[in-house]
Each structure stands twice: as structure tokens, then as C-alpha cells.
């Protein structure tokens, strides 16, 4: 992790109150692995104290104006590990569908939705403004066991709910580079919530979209689409990678269990520090006593689904 104050390069408004914030931070960008996150601090504000945790959506060599045209970046370490373990398993290395990325990333991109005071103020950031950024944090997706599960599967199914898409682009790109077949199931309240769809197009075999108001794709929850898909492909072995609201996670985990597929969850929670000390982001996991809770920021944000206990709480979240 690196603690730095970095300049905003671009803060691009997207549909539905979403923004794509690009900051210039070569050291942090180059250290980033898929699935990791950043803690963002608005400087000189004593009323908004805490940093906001955000998935690192993308890392790039330079900011792309308009549509995303910059080639994707991939951490060299992750690539080597992926290729090596595929070779060991006797699997083909890199399908070549995705062009090789540049070796030097300088920009970190954070995809966010304006929901509260913190993100409201973030939306006002202009190029040249500074933000505090501690990144990269968390262990992300690419620890060996996740890779092994991806390689054993016939395909990786990404399941994203709204802004949850932000945690899945970097892993999808790494997996695509490793030649692993992927599909995306993406749900939102309205079509305005479906940001970042374009970036996924070159990486996945299919994209299945659902909106609660029916403004695009299937009308309903994306997990209903997922259920239909899993029903039709019972003979296949998938790995699910899920990020989204609590209800969607729970529904995805139920489906994974029913159809017997391994499932990874990228969890969100309120965080005080992101550094593992405040214990504010703990979630209930399988275990007793002192082992009953784990920190999203440190043991996560990615967890195997069977580790996470979904229990109803008596308060608002």
C-alpha cells in the first residue's frame, strides 16, 4: 500500500449519476492487482472525515478522452503466474484475443456513483485538484487458488450489480489474457446504471443484461437470468465472480450452491480506515468466537462464498 496525494486528470460524468475518476499515480497504478481497492480522501474537509473505499476499476498508461481507447494494462506478475500455471496444467497460454498491454501504467481509474455526501463532493472534483489516495489495498482476486478455480472451470461467469461492475473489469481482463472463457451478467435498476459495459465487450463471450424497470434487457433481477443460464447448462462447470448489493450476492450464492459451482464474492462495506485497524468493515464469516468476523479490507475484499454468513441485521445498511 502507498499513501499519496495525487492529481485528478479527469472526472468524467457517465449516465445515472456515475462518474469515472482518473488520477495520475504511477506507483500505485503499477502496484495494482485485479480486485484491489483504494481509499479516497477529500482533502481539506473537516466535515467529511473518512476516506471512501472504492474498487480500482482500471489502470491505464494515459487517460483516454471520450471512449476508452487505451490498451489494457496487466500486472506483469499476475500475467506470469497465470501463464505459468496454465502451462503446468497443460492448458493453452493466452488466446491472443486481447492485445498485449503496455508495461507502464500511470493512471488509476475509479468508477463511482453519487450516493451520499462524500461521493457528492467527489463529483465536483476538477482536473488539477488533488485527492488523497491509499492504494492498492486488499488481496484482490489473484491469489493462486482463485486462478486454479478459473482454470478448472469451463467459463468464468461475472455477475455484477450496478456499481459492483467496478471490481470485475481488471480480473476479466487478466482472465481474457489467459485465454479463459468468460460471460457477464450485469444488472441495474435502470439502463443508466449499466456503466462500463463497453469495456467488457472484447473480454467476454456474452453479455446478459437485466434492469428492474425493463429499460434495457431482461426486466427483473440479473440473478434470474443467471438462474436460467445455469439451468440450461447443467453439465458445465463454472466459476462465479460476483460483486454487487447484498441481496444480489445472497441470491448468487444460493444459485452457486444449488448448481454446485464455486463462487467468489467481492464484498463491500463501510470502512473506517481500509488498513485493518478500525475493525469497522468486518463481516460475519463461518467460524466461532474470535474467528466469527473478518475484515473486508484485509482478509477481503474477495471471499469464497462458503466463508460468508448471510444473516439479517436489525439495522439499516
Amino acid at each position, binding site marked *: *500500500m502507498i*499513501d499519496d496525494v495525487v492529481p485528478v486528470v479527469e472526472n468524467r460524468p457517465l449516465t445515472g449519476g456515475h462518474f469515472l475518476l482518473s488520477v495520475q499515480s504511477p506507483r500505485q497504478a503499477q502496484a495494482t492487482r485485479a480486485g484491489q481497492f483504494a481509499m479516497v*480522501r477529500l482533502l481539506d474537509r*473537516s*466535515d*467529511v*472525515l*473518512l*476516506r471512501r473505499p472504492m474498487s480500482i476499476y482500471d489502470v491505464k498508461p494515459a487517460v483516454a478522452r471520450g471512449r476508452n481507447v487505451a490498451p489494457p494494462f496487466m500486472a506483469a506478475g499476475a500475467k506470469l503466474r497465470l501463464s505459468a500455471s496454465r502451462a503446468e496444467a497443460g492448458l493453452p497460454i493466452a488466446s491472443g484475443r486481447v492485445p498485449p498491454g503496455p508495461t507502464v501504467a500511470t493512471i488509476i481509474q475509479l468508477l463511482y456513483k453519487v450516493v451520499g455526501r*462524500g461521493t457528492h463532493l467527489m463529483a465536483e472534483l476538477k482536473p488539477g485538484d488533488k485527492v*488523497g489516495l*491509499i492504494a492498492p489495498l486488499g488481496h484482490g482476486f489473484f491469489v493462486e487458488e482463485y486462478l486454479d478455480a478459473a482454470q478448472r472451470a469451463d467459463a468464468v461467469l461475472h455477475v455484477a450489480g450496478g456499481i459492483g461492475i467496478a471490481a470485475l473489469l481488471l480480473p476479466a481482463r487478466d482472465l481474457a489474457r489467459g485465454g479463459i472463457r468468460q460471460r457477464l451478467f450485469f444488472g441495474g435498476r435502470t439502463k443508466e446504471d449499466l456503466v462500463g459495459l463497453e469495456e467488457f465487450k472484447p473480454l467476454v463471450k456474452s453479455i446478459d443484461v437485466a434492469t428492474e424497470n425493463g429499460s434495457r434487457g431482461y426486466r427483473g433481477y440479473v440473478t434470474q437470468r443467471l438462474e436460467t443460464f445455469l439451468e440450461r447448462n447443467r453439465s458445465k462447470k463454472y466459476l462465479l465472480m460476483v460483486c454487487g448489493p447484498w441481496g444480489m450476492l445472497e441470491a448468487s450464492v444460493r444459485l452457486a450452491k444449488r448448481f454446485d459451482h464455486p463462487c467468489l464474492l467481492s464484498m463491500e*462495506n*463501510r*470502512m*473506517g*480506515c481500509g*488498513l*485493518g*485497524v*478500525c*475493525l*469497522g*468493515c*468486518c*463481516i*460475519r464469516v463461518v467460524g*466461532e*468466537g*474470535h*474467528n*466469527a*468476523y473478518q475484515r473486508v479490507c484485509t482478509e477481503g475484499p474477495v471471499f469464497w462464498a462458503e466463508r460468508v454468513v448471510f*444473516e439479517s*441485521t*436489525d*439495522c*439499516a*445498511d
Partner: protein
Amino acid sequence: MNPQIAQIKQIKKKFKMQKSKFKIQKSEESAKSGDSGFSPRIDTEIAGVHFENPVLTASGTFGYGQEFAHLIDLNALGGIVVKGISAEPMAGNPPPRIYETGAGMLNAIGLQNVGARKFLEEKLPFLRTLRTRCVVNVFGYSTEDYVRAIEILNAGEGIDAYELNISCPNTRCGGMVYGNDPRLTEEVVGASKHVARFPLIVKLSPNVTDITVLARAAESAGADGLSLVNTFVGMAIDIESRMPRVSNITAGLSGPAIKPIALRMVYQVARAVKIPIIGIGGIASAEDALEYIIAGARAVQIGTANFYAPETTLRVIEGIREFCRRKQVHLAGLVGSIKVSTDVGPPSS
């Protein structure tokens, strides 16, 4: 005599010698005040423990130190107060545990911790490698719990002092019961002091009518110092769902929002007791820390600011040094130096 006790006595003696040396140096240096090359001394002493500077990290905001090793120079700190330790490991409260409020945050973590034995095995060895003082925050649910935790921790090499947490607002029948009742305060402080191998600092709750009553009770029971204050009990409600924002319903408020109230309490207690005080509550700058010192604190702890600005402690240390240089005064000369026109304290709330 137990060789460990002998060792402690020797260390204490060394500190006393350093202290008297410090006095001589101080008078020499104040004699040549006006000298632009004035180099202020900002070291301090609490409960017989010497600290290189008056800035410590508050319990529960700095883990066990190692978590910040990549972010700041831990050896530059005056002291690290580790996350509260109990005799047995604790699970903590269900989520959500925190919520941000105006210039502050609510937390109800529930004292999740690894337990005293695991702390000694897994956390203390790292802390021992630092020059920084290590203060271990201790809590329990009964006097026996406190005593048991201390008895386990007594085996730890590299612990400089205990901070007895009798003020956590977030555990069922937890420490705060002790912190609200002067008789119980005396009981738990007395019993803990009796077994403690290291100096005992007592951390008080602000959730009382008159904090000086509890401060005096702790002092009379043998406390070597006081930490003021723990978090203020507060709450927040989501008006859409009409549910509390934190699962524990009530939670402890910390951050800049509480600073004026905590400062007032330090000022009151400084006039009520003779033992040294560590000021805590919303400190985010050297100016904040200096207010506490002028009100009567010999040291300060920085808590919530560690979460959003990990470099705060180092900035505060530098700021205090710079202020002392500018004012040509040593830290000791600032402690309790508040100028008030009459000697009448503020009315008790």
C-alpha cells in the same frame, strides 16, 4: 527480589536521573532564551515512563502497530497504545459497526481482539523491536477478568505500561459500568494495580455527570496516570428505514466533533488530581494537541485521524516541536499553562 522487578526499579531510577538532568538543562537553556538556535525538549513522563515525545496513538485506531509500518516511521512516535486486550479472545459486534457523522464517526466494534496470550505470542514481538513505548490497553467484564488479563500480560517483555479501559461504551455490561461508578472504579483500579507489573494508566469515560469524581476515585485507588477520554455515546438513525445506523444501536462518537468537550474534561481533571493526564479526543493537528497540553495534559493520543490521515501523528509531533521553538519553551513549560483570570473552574455539568 524478583529480577524483573529489580530491572524495572533500575529503569525507573534511570528515568529519575534523566529527569533531574533535564531540569538542569532546562534552566540552562531558559537562561539563554532569545537564542535563535533554541532546541526545545518535547519529551515527557507519564506514570514513571519516559516518552521521547508526547504523541501516542489511541487504542483501537492503530491496531498492533505493524499495520502502519508501511505508512509511517513507527520509531518516531512517542508511544503506541494497542487495541484493547482481554484475557480471552473476543468476537466483537455484528456489522454494521461504524457510521460517519458530521466531523466525527460512530463506532461499536465491541472490543474484538486476539486475547492476551495470542497478543504476547504474535503481536508483542514486533512491538518490542521498536524504540517507541508500548502501552497495552486492557479490559474485562468483571474485576476478575481485568486481573486475569493483567496476570497473563505481566509475562510480556517490552510492555511499558497498561491502560485500563473502564470506559468502553460498546459492550454489554462492559467496562463502562466500572467507569460510571466511583466505587467500582476504585475496586477495579485497586485490584489491577495490585497485580500489575507495569505502571497503570486508567482510561476514563466521558459519559458521566462529573468526571472529576471518577478521576479522583482512580487516583485514590493507585492509578499512575489517566487517559481522558474514551468515546461519547451517540447514535444515528436511517430515516428511510427508521433503523439505527449501527447494529449496537448506540455507538461511541469520536473525531473533531468531540474535541471541545473532551478538552473541557481534561482541564477540569487537571485541577482535580495530581497524577499525569493524557488528553484524547478529536486531535488532528498540533494546535489541537497544544490546547490539551496547555489545559493540563502531559501527553496526547491521536485516534480517529489515524484512519483518514495516517501521517497525523508525525505532523503533530513536528508541529509541537516547532511551536515550542517559536515560543522558546520546553514542553514541560506548556503543560497546564493555561491563563485564566480567576482560579474558578468551569461549572460542572
